[in-house]
């Protein structure tokens, strides 16, 4: 897991999974890296093979933190399966999802 700070955006990359075993660590890692100036968190899910409900819980928690400062979470390049799950759970309504380039 790595973070990159680009202006108002905090980019999180190198996530092989976002599941029960690492969701808490992920949340704390992102919160730790967040600076007051950050209003967008971009989570690159391009390398993520699986995301479960605990991982979603962590994303929603970060989303709420950013809402408090008028910001948002953007999810980049989820796999079709993960994307399907976001839609199934109607989370595409609260996250901005950037599809994988075809």
């Amino acid at each position, binding site marked *: 897991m790595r973070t990159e700070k680009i202006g108002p955006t905090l980019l999180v990359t190198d996530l092989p*999974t976002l*599941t*029960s*075993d690492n969701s808490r660590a992920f949340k704390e890692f992102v919160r730790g890296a967040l600076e007051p100036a950050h209003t967008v968190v971009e989570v690159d899910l391009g390398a993520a093979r*699986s995301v*479960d*409900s*605990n991982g*979603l*819980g*962590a994303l*929603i*928690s970060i*989303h*709420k933190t950013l809402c408090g400062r008028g910001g948002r979470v953007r999810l980049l390049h989820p*796999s079709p*399966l993960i994307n399907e*799950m976001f839609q*199934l*759970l*109607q*989370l595409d*309504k*609260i996250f901005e999802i950037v599809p994988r380039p075809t």
Partner: protein
Amino acid sequence: MSGAPNQWVRKFTVEFPCELTGVREACRQSRAELAAAGLGEEELGHWELILAEAGNNAVNYALGWQKHRPVRFEFFVDDQGVEARVQDHGPGFELPDQVELPPPDSEDGRGLFLIKTLSDEAVYYRGKGENWLVLKKKRQATGTPPVAVTTPPPPDDAGTQKLANSEATLDLMTEELASAYESLSTIFRFSAELADQPKPEEFARKWLGEVSKIVAADWFILRLLDEGEGLKLVASSEDLSVREVLSLDNAGEADVSLEMRAASFRMDVWFDALHPVAAVDPLAKLAAQGTGFSHPIVINDRLVGVLSVGRYLSDSVFQAGQVSLIQTFADFLGIQIRNAQFQQQQLQTKLTARELQIAADIQRSLLPKQLPHVPGFQLVGHYQSARQVGGDFYDVVETAEGGLLLAIADVMGKGVPAAMFAAIFRSQLRAAAERATSPATMLTWLNRSLFADLDQVEMFITAQLVYFSPRDRTIQLSAAGHPPLILAGNDGRLQAVENSGMPLGVLADTEYSERAVSLPPGANLLMFTDGLTEARDPEGKLLWLGPLEKCLAQAAKTGQRAEQTKEALIALVEAHQQGIPPGDDQTFLLLAEYRGDSRGKPPQL
């Protein structure tokens, strides 16, 4: 699975420790096995997510020792579909038919929704010691047949796998039913016996012993909350040496005592090798090497007690069904004990009421049914019992010399004991009256006769004896700690005739004296107990002697009938009390000279 005969069947099991990191690895392994069984990428993705959610639930719901048991995935794959069974050892949960999505910003609550939505069928069986989540999902047509066949089905038997699956499901249901049956049948047997068992503590000891055998516990300790004292030991397995009482006021104890923590936090507190009890815990000796838990018994949000159950060896953990039986039994026991205590209180109230009734009956039986007729005089008596019956009584005995022995007494005390002593006093008095006519001699003899019995129970009797000679118009009075009598003549003059002596039962060798008094013309003589002068009004003010004397003087002056004077005295006391019940028995005996009607019938009581 239904459909055409199986061509490719794969059965495999993945077991993992009850922790979240184990779920991840188990999902990876399961995915690899399912891929080998020929499932397509999308199916694999779905199964991986379903299994992750099921595994997370199994881990998250496990408590205490349950976390030491592994979680197990079992798979049955054929060409039609996949059945996965997830075994957990937690307390289980309810899986509703319809699972609603939580609000979008909720951080949890999506796992069951995903399981239900992504599988074709999801059923949760809560069993004895273990639970099973059975998940079924049809295979997609695009899946490729597996290359390897690890467990070939029996040849040419399409129904065998289906039968095996149904059998396994039935086994699970049977297990669950058996567990429920065991708990229920124990509780029914237990309820049936409760009706015949008067002491809840003995009952608890016996049945906790039975339950301990069923769940293979080595020891148990039941404490019930005693409001004044704390958690009081009520029952334990044999030969246990544990503290009698755990004080709820001792904050330090709550930190170290398993039982106190269970009581304080109203939740089960477990101990095992990984969570040992503190060395200063009152259970330390029992629980040092073992495993078990303390369960708070709470009825209607009120702590009733704590049941602790354990095994001496830590590698022998209780199974979920056993834990469930202990918990159910403890809660049921708590209700039964509370009910028994309530019934005991009710019984005690009834017994007290019955005792008072008996005492009142004895009192009534002591009173003379009819008073002797003395020409020129009228004699009436009155007895009004208080709510808590005391030991007042009066008696009139005709003597061989043609005189009357008038007696009034007050046994100090309440209820049956006081009434019993009144009865004894009465029989002794009648025996004494046959031997002597001197009241002082009688009292001296009565005191010697009754002293030992009265002294033993720390009771005493105040009494007043009057020997009345109608022929001589004199009285001889002797008293043992009793209020003076009042004598009024037809001139309205009053005198309090006193002759004090120790109450009966105080000193063994008391010698009583007596005094003789001539009766004035139109004499009205009132003997009474202190319940009369100490009648209270609603503000607690005593009646005292004045109004009674005034009433008696008036009666003597007007020469009214004794019965009228009796009614006037009663009305006087009742008017003072203003409707509140008397705090003590009220008794009096009235002798009135009556010249208006010398043919007058003897007054009736």
